[in-house]
């Protein structure tokens, strides 16, 4: 088996260099930690929205996450690998178990419950790192594995607790993060719907927008990038090409609708793109080591991020695209090492990347419709049939929901909704809508239906049901059956 063993990065044999690299990484992260402390702790405290615990809560949050990963790793090494005393100490000194915890805390929203954070840390360390053989052998970024678990298991709890908004933002900002705003707005959106609620693009750059603990400030991420590139800790190619690809594709999409340069800037400054590109995608263990491999890695990361952001119901795509591309690092390195002597060997992959960029740009640009062009008609809404008996109209309508279409029969009598029967839906969480008696609530409060809150955890489907009812009512009024 020995000859098939793939060596894992970092390749530097001198142990002092690895620890120095990690030291530089820590220094680059300190401004981000301080910024998130000021944004999520100090500002709400100054504005009198929180108490002393709330002031230091961001720091406690990060500290608990780091302690969890360190303790989990010590226990795992002690129990499962059976190392003791001096051996244990050397192992822990050289496995840098603080970083998964630190990154995990920085990519999670502030409203994550502490137990979810601890479970995320344990999963990140054991499943993401130790089961693969510890530091240097893991295929996937451990912090992202932990984050993925926390978001899939406790996503509902987090969004009920307030999602990404800290105690100050919860009062001042009505909508969620900029990107989940994109997912809710049908079509591409405009400057007023996307950027205006959070200030200007300058705020996006500084990081005073809602988001996970460490990922909002593009400024400090870029400063960290410059520092890490000067100290030669990370490979500059991956983040630069990653962000440039996302910029290029979104610029294409934006320019198809006549949107200015603000649109691609909005896309690269919002969400975890900057933080993910600079600190996550460049993780020395889980990224390619050959130059051409790194270029391809960045290109495909950008393509996948755009796909995940636009074509899936999930607002953010950085986490999933980095985890997906982590799987292909081995293949990219193979292409890269062949192409080092003969560039033609990698031409096929580059061709594929360019073709995908063009294809996706054109596809998304053409399928998504700009808001004000739609003439107030919802493109996701469709009337299958209607049966008119005097003033009683029985509609069969469909509305695009979280996954697939929601089909319903709605009976309107004299302008008032009598019954709503959901005939078909594919959302596995739809039961939550039924459990919450949401449909009865819609019928009960139909006079003020626009104000009915959506249900957290099934936001998209409940919004779809609400929109379906609103659209049906609008059609009833337009057709003038009531007169």
């Amino acid at each position, binding site marked *: 088996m020995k000859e098939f063993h793939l060596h894992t990065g970092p390749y530097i044999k001198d142990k002092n260099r690895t620890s120095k690299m990690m030291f530089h990484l820590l220094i680059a992260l300190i401004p981000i930690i301080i910024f998130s402390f000021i944004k999520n702790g100090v500002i709400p405290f100054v504005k009198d929205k929180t108490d002393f615990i709330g002031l230091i809560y961001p720091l406690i949050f990060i500290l608990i996450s780091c302690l969890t990963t360190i303790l989990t790793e010590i226990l795992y090494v002690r129990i*499962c690998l059976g190392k003791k005393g001096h051996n244990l100490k050397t192992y822990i000194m050289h496995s840098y178990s603080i970083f998964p915890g630190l990154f995990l805390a920085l990519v999670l929203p502030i409203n994550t419950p502490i137990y979810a954070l601890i*479970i995320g840390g344990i999963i990140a360390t054991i499943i993401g790192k130790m089961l693969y053989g510890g530091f240097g052998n893991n295929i996937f970024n451990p912090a992202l594995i932990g984050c993925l678990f926390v978001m899939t298991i406790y996503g509902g709890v987090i969004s009920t607790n307030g999602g990404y908004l800290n105690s100050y933002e919860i009062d001042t900002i009505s909508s969620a993060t900029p990107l989940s705003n994109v997912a809710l707005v049908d079509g591409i959106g405009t400057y007023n719907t996307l950027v205006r609620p959070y200030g200007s693009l300058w705020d996006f750059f500084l990081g005073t927008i809602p988001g996970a603990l460490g990922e909002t400030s593009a400024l400090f991420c870029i400063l960290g990038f410059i520092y890490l590139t000067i100290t030669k800790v990370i490979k500059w190619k991956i983040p630069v090409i990653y962000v440039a690809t996302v910029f290029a594709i979104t610029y294409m999409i934006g320019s198809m609708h006549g949107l200015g340069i603000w649109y691609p800037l909005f896309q690269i400054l919002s969400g975890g793109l900057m933080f993910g590109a600079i600190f996550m995608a460049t993780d020395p263990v889980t990224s390619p080591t050959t130059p051409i491999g790194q270029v391809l890695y960045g290109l495909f990361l950008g393509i996948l991020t755009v796909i995940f952001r636009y074509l899936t119901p999930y607002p953010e795509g950085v986490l999933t695209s980095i985890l997906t591309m982590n799987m292909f690092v081995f293949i990219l390195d193979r292409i890269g090492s062949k192409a080092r002597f003969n560039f033609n060997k990698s031409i096929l992959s580059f061709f594929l990347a360019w073709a995908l960029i063009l294809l996706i740009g054109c596809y998304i640009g053409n399928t998504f419709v700009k808001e004000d062009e739609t003439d107030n008609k919802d493109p996701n809404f469709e009337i299958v049939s209607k049966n008119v008996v005097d003033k009683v109209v029985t509609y069969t309508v469909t509305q695009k929901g979280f996954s697939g279409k929601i089909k319903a029969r709605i009976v309107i009598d004299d302008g008032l909704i009598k019954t709503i029967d959901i005939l078909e839906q594919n959302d596995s969480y739809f039961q939550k809508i039924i459990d919450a008696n949401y449909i009865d609530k819609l019928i009960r409060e139909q006079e003020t239906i626009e104000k009915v809150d959506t249900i957290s955890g099934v936001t998209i489907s409940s919004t779809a049901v609400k929109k379906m009812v609103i659209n049906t009512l609008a059609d009833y009024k337009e057709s003038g059956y009531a007169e």
Partner: protein
Amino acid sequence: MKTIINGIIKENPTFVLLLGLCPTLAVTNKFESSYIMGFCVLVVLLFSNFVISIIKKLIPESVRIPVYILIIGTFVTIVELLLKEYVPTLHKALGIYLPLIVVNCIVLGRALTVASKKSVGQSILDAIGIGIGFTLALSLIGFIREIFGTNTITLIDGLSEVLEIGKLKYINVINLPIFPINILASPSGAFLTLGLLVGIFNAIRNRKGRGKLESN
């Protein structure tokens, strides 16, 4: 007795041989459906091993696999029709994985390696051991997935119609904020649980093996 224990521990079809993974991953989201699935495989395995070991001398070498499949298919059909008649809810829950026992590699594998070579008694004992091993493994996975994935445990739900006892549908077991870990109830949770259990099983076996070597 040794053959039975061998089937449960040393040659556990799920954790050691890694055979029959399709039902292992697909039907173990509820405790009840897991042990019923295991039991169905046990029954099919028992009868097919018995019949094949009786007629093994009559079957020509060149057509043995079609003949085995035919015999296994017969018993699977019997089990399926019985379940459909008496426990329709369970039949629905097991779905396509019930007829798929025909191509379950445990059943065919045991027919090829044991029933066609060994005596009738040996084959029956082997079928019991392997069947119990499979049932236990499936129940363990189903138990873990249901208890942590949905907080409940379904002991007797579909079966209560046959046994004519009151429904013990769901028992709410844990009430902690960290549960349910709903990813365990989804298909990806099946892979995770199985992988971790196989890992733990192997770690224990390795440790025991090492201990033996050292003592020798």
